[in-house]
């Protein structure tokens, strides 16, 4: 149990997917202008990461390893994640229309999100078991949620600041993201063991 907690804390803070591993930067910058949309995107990513971690682990363990096709990890995972996102979209639309209405537009964006693929590949690389994979996927998603919410809060304030013209808009968002990453590098010193 303590092991899982450490794993989770590590994925959220010390090895934050956005700030330390630099994965999932496009939604991080693209959907962080408003807090509402950022939270929606973050939750959608967390949801997809958890489920795709579980399924890719099963695919790897019970299909690819027995067939000695581990080198197909990346391609096979992309296939699986893309189909999975489609499936989730259908199920949500059918059974949870309200959740679909709030997450709906973000789900297709996640299909090609490198952070989701990254979690799946890291699970295999680090040799996590099934439960560890799911916890790692969930925590990575929470880390992403934290990152995108933090940036959206900064960007909502940036609108009201007097910024020199060349830095208005996207450049200031990049600088804010960079400073957040710098701050998060402070967690590197955290002794978790």
């Amino acid at each position, binding site marked *: 149990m303590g092991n899982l907690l450490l794993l989770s804390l590590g994925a959220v803070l010390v090895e934050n997917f956005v700030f330390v591993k630099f994965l999932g930067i496009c939604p991080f910058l693209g959907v962080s202008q408003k807090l509402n949309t950022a939270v929606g995107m973050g939750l959608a990513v967390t949801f997809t990461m958890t489920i795709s971690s579980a399924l890719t682990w099963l695919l790897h363990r019970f299909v690819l390893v027995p067939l000695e096709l581990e080198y*197909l990890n990346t391609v*096979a995972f992309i*296939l699986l994640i893309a189909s999975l996102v489609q*499936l989730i979209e259908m199920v949500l639309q*059918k059974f949870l229309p309200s959740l679909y209405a709030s997450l709906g537009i973000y789900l297709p964006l996640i299909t090609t999100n490198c952070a989701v693929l990254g979690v799946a590949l890291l699970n295999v690389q680090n040799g996590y078991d099934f439960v560890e994979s799911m916890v790692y996927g969930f925590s990575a998603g929470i880390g992403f949620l934290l990152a995108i919410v933090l940036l959206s809060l900064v960007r909502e304030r940036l609108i*009201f*600041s*007097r910024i020199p013209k060349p830095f208005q808009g996207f450049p200031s968002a990049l600088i804010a993201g960079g400073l957040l990453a710098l701050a998060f590098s402070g967690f590197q010193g955290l002794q978790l063991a």
Partner: protein
Amino acid sequence: METVIVIALTVLALAILALLLGLALALAGKVFAVKKDPRIGEIVQCLAGANCGGCGYAGCSAYAEAIVSQGAPVNCCPVGGKETADAIGAIMGVTAQAPVRLRAQVMCSGTTDLARRKYAYRGISDCLSVAKLGNGPKECPYGCIGLGSCVHVCPFGAIKVENGVAAVEYEKCRACGACVSVCPQHLIKLVPFDTDVWVGCRSQDKGPVVRNYCQVGCIGCGICVRNCPSGAISVQESVASIDYSKCIDCGLCAEKCPRNIIWSGKKQMAEGDTLTVEGKQ
């Protein structure tokens, strides 16, 4: 030889995986199918796609859904205008009434040279926050603040601030109403596109007070009310307002107004002239 086998195996494995996933998705598509009216998709194609919210719904697709499922009127899209309304009408099998084209009008004429200033403002460039500081930097508590919250919110780039007062470029305006709801002074109104007259003041202060702080403000004298042949003008709370359902665009009110606050300068505005008293006379 061995390489060929490996390649064949790889291709085969991926193909089978893809096929299985494809089948699963196809099956899921059948099982979880949500019956959706095909007309919704067609209507979305017709709409402008600006997602401006001018129709009163969250976006283009939300409006399309409302047309089909709730029977919303087909002529609400201010961006597409008549053509869009006709196209949607054809899909829904109804004849669309031509929407009355509207435009936004800023009801303030107190440019920096005409309206007295209370204080010089330096800070966040946003009308909403300045409105909290004694109703803006102008002595007139109803006047345009001129920091351009409406400019930022306009999805069509139709508003600019000239001489401290926001002005709408009518040709670009699509009457989505974004500026109407953002203006903290409630100065922007939607008026019929073709109308020629409007009251360029919303000050509810009494005449002498208005005279003191603005060279052009409405003093509520009522001369326009007495001169209007169609009874379209009324003075409420010391400011004249025009009922456009009765207005016949004769321009008498603009001629008679002693404060030059009723404008009839649509043509000159369209050419990009600034609002000045001299320009009108």
